């Protein structure tokens, strides 16, 4: 097996190119009342539809409304070995950005499942050195009604 150090970024990009377009099931995400409130609190929202179930219902929602961008929390796996900020292959990984299509409102109590599809792989020179740029699209589907509620394109930078 060839180690990461022996492969160039271009070789990695060529290898990962074969995964473009291949969808893989991802995570199950729980949208809980506690999760909604914590997300809203962290961002300093004042709108009570994120905190108070009665206030949310008064606006016609079935439960707390999920703040923009909050698509639940993954169920923690105690056997997961991922180290924050580090990828399995490269010494450093950065989040390069995201685009989110909000298709339907999400509420506390929803359980979402994701499907992730790599959509491009590239290499470019940056001030941090050669950088591998991977863009993927994740589709978020609500389990209770099968509705796609959001699609997000994420850019991951490895170097």
């Amino acid at each position, binding site marked *: 097996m060839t180690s990461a150090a022996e492969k160039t970024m271009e070789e990695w990009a060529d290898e990962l190119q074969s995964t473009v377009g291949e969808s893989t099931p991802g995570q199950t995400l729980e949208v809980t009342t506690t999760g909604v409130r914590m997300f809203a609190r962290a961002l300093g929202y004042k709108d009570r539809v994120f905190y108070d179930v009665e206030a949310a219902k008064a606006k016609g929602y079935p439960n707390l409304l999920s*703040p*923009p961008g*909050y698509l639940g929390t993954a169920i923690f796996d105690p056997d997961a070995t991922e180290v924050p900020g580090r990828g399995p292959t490269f010494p450093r990984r950065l989040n390069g950005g995201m*685009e989110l*299509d909000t298709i339907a409102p999400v509420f506390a109590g929803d359980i979402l499942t994701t499907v992730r599809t790599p959509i491009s792989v590239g290499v470019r020179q940056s001030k941090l050195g050669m950088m591998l740029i991977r863009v993927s699209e994740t589709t978020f589907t609500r389990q209770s009604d099968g509705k796609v509620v959001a699609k997000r394109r994420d850019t991951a930078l490895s170097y």
Partner: protein
Amino acid sequence: MAEQVYWDDIQVGHRISILEQMDSQRLVVWAAASGDFYQIHYDDGFARRNNLPDVLVHGVYKGMMVGKLLHGWVGDQGRIVTWGNSYRGMNGVNDELTVWGQVTRKYEQDGQHLVDLDVGVHGRDQKEGSPGTATVALPAR
């Protein structure tokens, strides 16, 4: 919530913004909310050993702040259709963030009254580090 904004009343060039004073507590609450426990966002020694000038505000946090700006602006009758940001710049833990949007286009499509915006987040140094775009649907009069 602020008074409802209507599509008819918005012109290209219209600018919206909020100011957000950051501190370590906000970053720790965000770490818990997001599950991002990378130490560069709360451990000063770790950040400096990784050649960073300070503990840094999470890129995603800045992106989600744009969601907060848009949510507050579109009101109960409006809707965020899409938004996105690149995470390019660094902001230290005690920076004051300006989260902004500026209308670049207004149009009707599929029965919706839509507005496109440029969006971004910058600190006190005024350098735009999270450029992006957004589309929202607003109610018409």
